[in-house]
């Protein structure tokens, strides 16, 4: 299958859009009609054909434009990509993982040719054809982590494992849900999650850490997380919050369907072979409310989840002020019928909206 890459923007005029295919494969994050934190981990060993779970690193129609947006963020603020000195080997591990995965999973788009340490990497969508020496930094235009993550959608946190903890010691973070790599770099698992409400008390992070420390090579894991974003803005960073925060106040009953986006993170976790680091890709998918409402099951469910979410979570996720307007919109898509279990759209089996 050949992907048609969109020519679109995630800022200014926000020309981002999802095709019908992209809407149907959107990783809707609610498997039931309510939401609370949980350690919702599962093995990352493929998934339904054409779903975002199918490949190790999903490449979709937004790839080329997302990489263009990342380059703009980095030009404005190079501190979005940092690696503490002991993390370079993990960067090479990550480069290898992504190059091998993408060339195997998308042979029409990416090629990797290896002759000992002499490697040649061809990235057709981005027009890259580079030869370099594996483990020799001088042969790449950037450090290994930066080089490969300028060519891979989603943020990447590279976590060192020591003292029975994980340490945020390197990362490429340009599409984040309001946290700062520059501030959090060097923190351990509990410290960088410190601002999250409720989850510490529920023991979520203790259990999640235990799970993550034991992830083995070749047995990656995944989970979904979510928040809300007004406009399809990838760079919802705290660094730029003083510029984008005001956009949250631009919602009206007329534009909310188009402007309000559900923001979903597909988080995956891979053990890296040489460094024993853990790489934590956080892939962001955006979908407007009006596009989500084309799936009747999702319309019913999103209304119920947003309506019943505890205030602490709506505050933490930054949409408590807009929640009444969201509910006024979403209630039109909830006819009270039951919904099928699981996240999938079930378009063939779920009834159309009763009006």
């Amino acid at each position, binding site marked *: 299958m050949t992907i048609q890459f969109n020519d679109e923007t995630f800022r200014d005029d926000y020309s981002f859009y999802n095709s019908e295919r992209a809407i149907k494969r959107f990783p809707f994050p609610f498997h039931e009609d309510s939401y609370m934190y949980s350690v919702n981990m599962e093995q990352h060993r493929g998934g339904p054909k054409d779903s975002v779970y199918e490949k190790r690193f999903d490449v979709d129609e937004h790839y080329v434009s997302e990489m263009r947006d990342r380059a703009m963020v980095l030009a404005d603020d190079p501190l979005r990509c940092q690696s503490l000195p002991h993390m370079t080997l993990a960067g090479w591990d990550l480069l290898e993982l992504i190059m091998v995965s993408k060339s195997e999973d998308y042979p029409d788009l990416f090629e990797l040719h290896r002759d000992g340490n002499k490697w040649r990497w061809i990235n057709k969508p981005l027009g890259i054809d580079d030869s370099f020496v594996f483990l020799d930094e001088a042969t790449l235009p950037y450090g290994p982590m930066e080089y490969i993550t300028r060519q891979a959608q989603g943020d990447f946190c590279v976590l060192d494992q020591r003292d029975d903890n994980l340490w945020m010691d390197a990362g490429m973070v340009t599409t984040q849900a309001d946290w700062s790599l520059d*501030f959090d770099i*060097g*923190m351990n698992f509990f410290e960088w999650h410190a601002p999250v409400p409720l989850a510490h008390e529920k023991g979520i992070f203790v259990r999640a850490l235990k799970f993550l420390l034991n992830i083995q090579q070749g047995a990656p894991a995944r989970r979904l997380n979510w928040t809300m974003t007004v406009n399809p803005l990838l760079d919802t960073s705290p660094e730029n919050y003083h510029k984008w925060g*005001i956009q*949250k106040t631009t919602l009206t009953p007329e534009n909310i369907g188009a402007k309000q986006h559900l923001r979903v993170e597909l988080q995956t976790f891979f053990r890296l072979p040489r460094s024993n680091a853990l790489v934590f890709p956080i892939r962001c998918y955006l979908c407007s409310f009006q596009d989500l409402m084309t799936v009747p099951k999702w319309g019913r469910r999103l209304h119920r989840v947003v309506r019943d979410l505890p205030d602490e979570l709506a505050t933490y996720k930054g949409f408590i002020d807009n929640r009444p307007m969201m509910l006024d919109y979403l209630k039109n898509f909830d006819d009270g019928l039951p919904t099928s279990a699981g996240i999938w759209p079930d378009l063939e089996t779920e009834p159309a909206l009763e009006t």
Partner: protein
Amino acid sequence: MSKFTFPESIRSRPIYGTLEARVGPAHLLVADAHGAEAILDVATPQMMEKAHIIYIPKGEDYEDKLRALKPASFYSGPSYPAAEPRLRKALADAKMGLQVYLAGTEGLMGQAQNAAMAAGIPHTAIQTEHRGSIARRMQCVHCKGITEEVETDPFVCSHCGLNLFVRDHYSRRLAAYQGVRVDAEDPGNVPTPKGIYE
């Protein structure tokens, strides 16, 4: 001066203890202002024979009392930045087993801890005791500038001039708390500043 009891907070926020004398071949004690009281409390004649005290008085009158402890080496300086080269030299010269004691304001302890960590001492091996001012060292997440001695929430960033609210989220690497624009979603609507723990 009585010790301030910090309210319970999030996991990234530092927790300070009470200095206790530990066995070691050498002792490095760094304090500012009322932190001197913690040194006076913990000092023993045996410790002082192998002690290096670095003190920043900030107008407080403890220098003579500290000198009277007769540490092997004593320094009193006008500011942390002025004292830092000496601190880094002491850490670079340190041998295995050096005991590090930090006392005083959060800004002083955070920065000195940072210097000790850069010298290879794990932060968990460094003792700290808070004394004196509860002002915070704040990083503006927007412009990255550090504002020292912040006593109110919100406050004005001394670099970019934005009105920032004071978070409890703390970075050891920066030795600072995070400040975030308070009126981003309603420009000009800045709450009246109040004391951080009020």
